[in-house]
């Protein structure tokens, strides 16, 4: 038997993403995944500037993707650096530029 609220969590996450998504992603052979892409300004050591790309999407859309896998966001190629499941139906993928 699945967790009592698993289906509700998935439905809620999918509905929220349909309203909030700002990009489409391709993970493995699955394309057209709606997600929120965050690529804001960031610094390292306060001496190097750049951006910190990450992708927020329903956990159900991530499948078995893991660190090291390739991912495409708005036609740009990245590698998954870290997978962070929040345990409530959403996942943040920390991305690394290729």
């Amino acid at each position: 038997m699945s967790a009592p609220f698993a289906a509700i969590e998935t439905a809620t996450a999918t509905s929220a993403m349909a309203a909030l998504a700002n990009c489409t992603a391709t993970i493995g052979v699955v394309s057209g995944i709606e997600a929120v892409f965050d690529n804001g300004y960031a610094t390292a050591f306060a001496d190097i500037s750049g951006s910190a790309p990450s992708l927020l999407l329903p956990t159900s859309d991530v499948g078995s993707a893991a660190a090291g896998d390739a991912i495409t966001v708005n036609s740009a190629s990245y590698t998954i650096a870290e997978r962070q499941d929040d345990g409530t139906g959403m996942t943040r993928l920390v991305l690394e530029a290729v």
Partner: protein
Amino acid sequence: MTHARQQIREAVATALTGLTTTSTRVHQSRMRPVGDTGLPCLLVSTDTEEITQSMQTRLYRDLTITVRGFAKATANLDDTLDTIASEVEMAMQSAGTLSGKTSSGLVLRRIDVDMDDTLDKPAGVIALQYQAQYFTAAGTPGTIV
């Protein structure tokens, strides 16, 4: 006349300009972050200085100079940082006394490495800390004696 600290810092920056990995991307006491197009690069700073009066008219100065190398890379970042350190060490050795600005050359005291995965590619810094001794006339910090 410019302070001896500035003269030494500028001489170090000159000695480090044109290295294979960091080329002309050598900065002195830079305050603003460097973007992708400015990497890999070197940052030269003159830091702590201990001063003792050896004679009434002469100050003995012990200056810490830090050379930090910055790089971003998806692979072998540690190799890139170590290559930067290798090039810096050779250039600093060749610089000798910086045309007499220091009394006994530049002595490498310490190396620190740090890495950060905040950005779109892993970033790293390798800091080489040097010590330089020199004398100035009391009251005229720009005059190296």
